[in-house]
């Protein structure tokens, strides 16, 4: 009884009265002191900034309101993914700009991924000349600012490409590519577009009105992918039960392509080819120079970074993995697919996503070639016309922040899914 009391007295921290100096010199309290001080300074700084802003706004006779988003914009946007004209509101213009930003980001991400994977793998190839060529590509693009690349591609599109009139005549100076399907001119690139004979009309939901035809096609593709996943899961289940994997490739092709073809035929889809009419091309889809320049500039520039990530990911897998797979009797193709790639992807994906983030943020350079993205509409013309710098910039920053946080949130989900389960 008495020994345990002694023990408690010896091991417990001696109770002492609290003294103010302990706030600084006692490790238990010091962090609180520092944080309170930090908070105090921070609030002081914030109060100072807000006070300045309020008094500056009052001096200018301005208020802080987002009402300008409902005022008519009065300016045109050359690339319109949704219906827009200059009588519509600034908010609508900002939405068009936002969609243009997203379109460009998705296109550039796709190009960067393809180029990056190809260049990253080829840089590791045994082939001397291919390896050197890829090194040159990566180093040249990585070490020169992306803005310069965008400007260069813009200049190539407007200065080095033939004018539409060059396609005219019996012996034209320029000719269309891919069996008269694609025309590359100094006014942009014209590609065939898919049109429908039967139009189901538009779906009216709020500010956007997507075409029902395309929604239907999209839905069928998604359903096909889902059904194919179920088919493969079923095949795996059969294999686990009986040891024999049923042949699925022809069923997969049928499920993925069959319904899409049926729906396209039912809607009467056809390809609308661009052709020279008057002074310009008509028909098809017109990809503007600004889009092409931004797309190539961002895609090829970021592709060099992706290539380095891919190379690092492949090099990070130790040779023992390959050797172990070979020792198990696996074919090289299967080794790559089942052993190397799943592990390399775990290393490659996080930096890849952060490259996607960079692309999304770099789309704001569109101003250099006149691409009408969020920065050029909301952060450019709208601000200039309404004089609402504070509100406009704030809104634009929040939108970019939301995009970035969405992408990095998706990355965190992915990371936690593929993380090594270590014990």
């Amino acid at each position: 009884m008495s020994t345990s009391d002694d023990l408690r007295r010896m091991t417990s921290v001696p109770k002492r009265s609290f003294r103010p100096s302990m706030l600084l010199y006692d490790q238990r309290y010091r962090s609180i002191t520092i944080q309170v001080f930090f908070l105090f300074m921070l609030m002081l700084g914030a109060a100072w900034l807000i006070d300045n802003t309020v008094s500056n706004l009052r001096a200018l006779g301005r208020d802080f309101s987002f009402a300008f988003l409902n005022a008519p914009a009065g300016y045109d946007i050359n690339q319109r993914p949704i219906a827009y004209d200059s009588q519509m509101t600034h908010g609508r213009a900002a939405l068009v700009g936002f969609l243009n930003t997203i379109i460009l980001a998705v296109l550039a991400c796709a190009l960067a991924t393809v180029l990056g994977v190809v260049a990253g793998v080829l840089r590791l190839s045994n082939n001397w000349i291919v390896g050197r060529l890829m090194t040159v590509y990566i180093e040249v693009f990585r070490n020169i600012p992306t803005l310069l690349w965008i400007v260069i591609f813009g200049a190539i599109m407007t200065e080095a490409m033939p004018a539409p009139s060059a396609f005219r005549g019996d012996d034209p100076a320029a000719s269309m590519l891919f069996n008269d399907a694609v025309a590359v001119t100094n006014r942009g690139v014209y590609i065939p577009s898919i049109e429908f004979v039967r139009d189901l009309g538009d779906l009216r939901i709020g500010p956007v009105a997507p075409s029902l035809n395309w929604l239907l096609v999209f839905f069928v593709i998604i359903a096909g992918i889902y059904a194919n996943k179920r088919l493969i899961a079923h095949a795996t289940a059969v294999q686990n039960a009986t040891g024999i994997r049923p042949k699925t490739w022809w069923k997969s092709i049928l499920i993925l392509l069959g319904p899409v073809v049926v729906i396209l035929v039912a809607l009467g889809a056809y390809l609308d080819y661009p052709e020279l009419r008057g002074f310009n091309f008509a028909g098809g889809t017109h990809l503007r120079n600004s889009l092409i320049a931004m797309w190539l500039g961002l895609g090829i520039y970021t592709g060099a970074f992706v290539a380095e990530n891919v190379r690092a990911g492949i090099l990070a897998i130790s040779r023992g993995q390959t050797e172990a797979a070979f020792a198990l009797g696996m074919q090289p193709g299967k080794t790559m697919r089942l052993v190397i790639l799943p592990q390399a992807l775990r290393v490659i994906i996080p930096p890849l996503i952060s490259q996607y983030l960079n692309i999304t943020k770099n789309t704001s350079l569109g101003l250099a070639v006149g691409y009408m993205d969020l920065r050029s509409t909301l952060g450019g013309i709208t601000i200039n016309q309404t004089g609402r710098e504070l509100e406009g910039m704030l809104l634009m920053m929040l939108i970019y922040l939301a995009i970035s946080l969405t992408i990095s949130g998706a990355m965190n989900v992915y990371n936690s899914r593929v993380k090594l389960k270590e014990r």
Partner: protein
Amino acid sequence: MSDTHAQTVAYVRESMLPEASPPIAEKGAVKWLRENLFSGWLNTILTVLSLLAIWYLLSAIGPWLLNAVWNAQSLRECREILDGASGACFAVIKDRWHQLLFGFYPPHLYWRPVLSLILLFVALAPVLFSQVPRKFLGLSALYPFVAYHLLWGGSVWLPVSVILGFVLGYVAFRVLARIAPLVAITGAILVPVLWWIFFAGTFTSAMTSVAPIGLDFVRSDRFGGFLISLVIGVSGISLSLPIGILLALGRQSDMVFVKSVCVMVIEFIRGVPLITLLFTASLLLNYFLPPGTAFDLILRVIIMVTLFASAYMAEVIRGGLAALPKGQYEAADALGLDYWKAQRLIIMPQALKISIPGIVNTFIGLFKDTTLVVFIGLLDPIGLSNAIRADTDWNGIYWELFIFIGALFFIFCFGMSRYSMYLERKLKTDHR
């Protein structure tokens, strides 16, 4: 028996044969070609494709480069000299190189930026290369003031008064350190701040009226071209590393409040494009500062670029900190080191070494991002290339300017990445 092949057996050769030469396919260039270029059908296809690509590029650019014109006064004159042949007109570089490098900096003062650049390398030498004696580091600390005075000029007493603030802070620290460490730190912060706010202005104007020495003042809007990229880049690089380290430590900290503020700052800055921050600097800063404050656009841009790079730096360094084994932290605790000593002596040297590639990548990214200042009206090389094209003499000239600008950026960025590889090799301590 004794006279037949006493030493050996009959069927064993007594003398070495001369070496036979290897088969033709296994030596020299042929072997190298077979192994490196044509080792399989896929490799052969790749080789042929690459050769075709190289040939295509060379045949497109080669004649254009070979026919280059270096002496002309305008693009029209260039075309007359070329007489229809395709050729580059590098005369524009010869005509306007000073603008691309210095912007509208007064030509008779070009020696000042050049001298600052030379001094930059001198000041960097003790930081970059360990062979240079350590005591020169003090001179490196003086460099920012010297460079500021050389570039902008004005009264010499302004930088001197700023230096005096630091000196006073150091003196206060040494004097007050005898009382208590906390008092010393407070004094070391308060004394210089009070000096700069209340006395530095008076001191500068008084000294200027007594002894008006100094260089000609050059306004910030005369800066341009590569000079502006270097000024913003170098200041951003040197300031973003310490701020990035502090942000990374804040994010790793146990103090909940400090940590959450650091996370918010880092995520916010990383989540928005640099260009929006630059616009904030040029358009919105007037709202946030007391009415009537106006300060230099280049300074504002430097602050924003530094903040931007610091957030990225913080994430890179956090990666380095996370890669350190926990044992290192525990070992530092076991030695009885306090937080800052542990960071300075144990953690940071290792964490920074791990994150060198990332740090240098951030530096390179920052340097390339200095081109974005063209959007807020500063004349960086890309902005100047537009200005040159606006001149009737050089209207329509593109590629020559782009090649010149690109080559300049390439030299600096490639140099930085090579230096980081050298540093990694030098600091490598594992045995593999």
